[in-house]
């Protein structure tokens, strides 16, 4: 997928969710902090399972976390 097609709001949602730290979010979705950093920087596209876990933990629909700009 070309760079920039899939954007995410993880950083914003994390702060809106009680200023959750990257490590706290990583622990809750069962991934490493480096993966959260890579996701926020747009350097990693998650699996569907991780994307759904992120949406569930952040308490929003998946399309509010990830936006496809094709």
């Amino acid at each position: 997928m070309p760079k920039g097609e899939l954007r995410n709001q993880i950083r914003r949602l994390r702060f809106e969710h009680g200023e959750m730290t990257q490590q706290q979010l990583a622990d809750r979705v069962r991934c490493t902090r480096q993966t959260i950093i890579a996701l926020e920087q747009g350097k990693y596209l998650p699996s569907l399972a991780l994307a759904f876990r992120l949406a569930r933990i952040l308490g929003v629909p998946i399309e509010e976390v990830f936006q496809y700009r094709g």
Partner: protein
Amino acid sequence: MTQARLRNLLALAIWVIVAVGFAMTVFASGGPATYADDSQRRVIGAVFLAIGIFGTPLARLLTRGKAQAGHVHRDERDEWIDAKATSIGMIAVVMLVFLGGIALWEAYQDPGCVPVGWMWVVAYATLILAHLAPAAIALAFDLGVLRRAEG
């Protein structure tokens, strides 16, 4: 630092030491042409290879520490990076061995035979590169030097 990044850094360091040590040994005094007949240099070369072969699992053993309470130290991104680095690394090794073979053929086309010492170089270099390349490529993906990973 994640366990995966630490392990790749250690593997890279170990195999760079092996590569430099072996290159210095094999290309010293007479080069590969005399390497096969020089038992002392062959032993030194084998010692360097042993450092890599035994050092890699030792490094993995020393870094296997249990995850801190509630923390994950290996996830899908690490798996993706490892798989990608291994496949790219193996293709790179095959290409380098192929190019090495062609270079030897070009260099020794006229005499009609290759000094047997070069076979040691090809064998050792293949093993060294097979460990070195995936570790370097995995670090490049992990640190964001290469394009982004996809789960």
